[in-house]
């Protein structure tokens, strides 16, 4: 049965994880996302769905526990915030190299270093450009509401299993901590081993039975020719992701003369900025990337044809702006506006930035 609740984004992640039949969660506490594991532990899903929940000794351990569980073909996830996700980069590189599906939630806080516990979007590069060593990508979803925090858990698992690649939910301290109305899906049963094999094939380490060859989860290949061939395979996969999985949302873009591009909580702010700008007679629109990898390059190119300028708005010193620039390839002026280190920009600030960059003088 669907259920309507008022809850925090972090709590919604936990609730959705149980309801979509997640097999395991491994995590380590860090602000501002600790409610995820706290909610799971309070729910004790091992008594209801059989879901495993374990507090690890570090993010290094939790991502490797995820690796082990994912290698068994299970729906396994972890969550953390920026410094913790940095510690997971080794494991994520290995998982991409082993083609293992998993879901990682990053409730981003300001950095670098220990930084601040306040919200930020300064982990964009780490999220969409690989993050660890080697040529790989994480399928990256950017929720902009508590509802999307809930909905994207199942979506992230679907994409992760479809492409056998880690998927990242790139949230931030605003979305994680704020409370909103959320409609929760009814409880789904966990997948059986047979269902998994039926849907995704037999590749997991579940014990080598007589009827199949043994399954080995590994990313090591010392023969350079083989390793290059494998890299070509990975790149073909990422190309397929780019062709099939782009998700975005347009807000008042049809007649827009100026385009704001923003994701997550910045997109929520920019929605208001568009309204303020339009009250002032500035025809602004907003494109909100929902997937950051794959990036909505084509939709931005299309809108770029009829706007005078694009402003990338991020709670960072300017990271996504590079992908916006790559998308339009010099055809229209692209500028960046951001507050960072834990500061959340106001809608008025964004409008001012739009005016100062493109309209005044």
């Amino acid at each position, binding site marked *: 049965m669907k259920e309507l609740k008022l809850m925090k984004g972090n709590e919604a992640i936990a609730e959705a994880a149980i309801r979509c039949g997640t*097999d*395991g969660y*491994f995590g380590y506490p860090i602000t501002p996302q600790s409610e995820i594991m706290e909610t799971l532990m309070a729910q004790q899903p091992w008594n209801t769905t059989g879901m*495993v929940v*374990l507090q*690890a*000794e*570090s993010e*290094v*351990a*939790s991502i*490797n*526990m*995820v*690796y*082990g*569980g*994912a*290698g*068994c073909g*299970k729906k*396994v996830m972890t969550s953390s915030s920026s410094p913790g996700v940095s510690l997971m980069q*080794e*494991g994520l590189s*290995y998982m991409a190299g*082993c083609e293992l599906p998993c879901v990682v939630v990053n409730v981003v806080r300001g950095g670098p270093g220990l930084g601040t516990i306040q919200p930020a979007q300064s982990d964009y590069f780490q999220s969409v450009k690989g993050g660890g060593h080697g040529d790989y990508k994480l399928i990256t979803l950017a929720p902009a509401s508590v509802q999307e925090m809930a909905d994207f858990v199942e979506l992230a698992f679907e994409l992760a299993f479809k492409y056998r690649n880690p998927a990242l939910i790139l949230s931030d301290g605003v979305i994680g901590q704020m409370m909103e109305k959320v409609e929760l899906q009814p409880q789904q049963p966990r997948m059986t081993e047979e269902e998994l094999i039926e849907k995704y094939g037999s590749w997991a*380490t*579940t*014990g*080598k*039975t*007589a009827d199949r060859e*043994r*399954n*080995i*989860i*590994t*990313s*090591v290949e010392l023969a350079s020719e083989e390793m290059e061939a494998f890299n070509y395979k990975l790149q073909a996969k990422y190309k397929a992701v780019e062709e099939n999985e782009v998700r975005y949302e347009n807000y008042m873009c049809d007649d827009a003369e100026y385009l704001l591009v923003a994701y997550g909580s910045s997109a929520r702010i920019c929605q208001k900025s568009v309204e303020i700008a339009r009250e002032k007679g500035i025809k602004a629109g907003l494109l909100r990337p929902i997937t950051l990898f794959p990036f909505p390059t084509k939709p931005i190119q299309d809108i770029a044809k009829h706007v005078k300028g694009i402003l990338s708005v991020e709670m960072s010193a300017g990271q996504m702006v590079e992908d916006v620039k790559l998308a339009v390839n010099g055809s229209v002026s692209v500028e960046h506006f951001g507050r960072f280190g834990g500061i959340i920009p106001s809608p008025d600030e964004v409008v001012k930035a739009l005016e100062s960059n493109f309209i005044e003088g």
Partner: protein
Amino acid sequence: MDIKEIVKEENLVYKKSMVLTDKEMHYCPGCTHGVVHKLIAEVIDEMGIQEKTIGVAPVGCAVFAYDYLHIDWQEAAHGRAPAVATGVKRLLPDKMVFSYQGDGDLAAIGTAETIHACNRGENIVMVFINNGIYGMTGGQMAPTTLKGMKASTCPFGREPQQDGNPLKITELLAQLPGTSYVTRHSCHTAAAVRKTKKALRKAFENQQQKKGTSLVEVVSTCSSGWKMTPAKANDWMVENMFPFYPLGDLKDE
């Protein structure tokens, strides 16, 4: 006598375990890894658990352990095998799970994962190959390198003030409430090999009985890293390694 008259079923005194693959091992002559691989294969075979055993391989010389045992394997990042094994066992509690790690993997880069997996009492077997050196990368100092022992990163011998002390991680792990069986063996004589096999068998049986973590250390030789012949390496191990890493059970509950 013609060879065909000798090679007969009734004359069979030894047979390679079916759990061992036919792949030629990459290990150096005199290396202990091959022997321990064989023993694990025999234990899996004799217990009839091939279809339910999942191995977790390390980074180090045994990185390709998965080439040699005919079971499902996961190859873990350096030092992370206990965390990976935790994930496997927690998600598939009815399967038999073991990690196979060297000293650098288990007692240096993976110390935290090792201690916490043991302290949680993860119901797994951990096989620990301790030869006091990094074989794969060319003979660098390991956490278990003895005082005065030479390695490429302590070419004049390990000097504790500069290099720190050798770590008796097995003694440390025996202190933890999560471990049920902690034992140290070797494979330098036929008798020692038999004892190691018995210990491995017991460790796997403990897992069947859900007793918590069982750790079997095998004090091993590295002829290449130690720059000795295999026979000399065995003698050197007896004279130098055994006094610091004495053989026997440290814990059996």
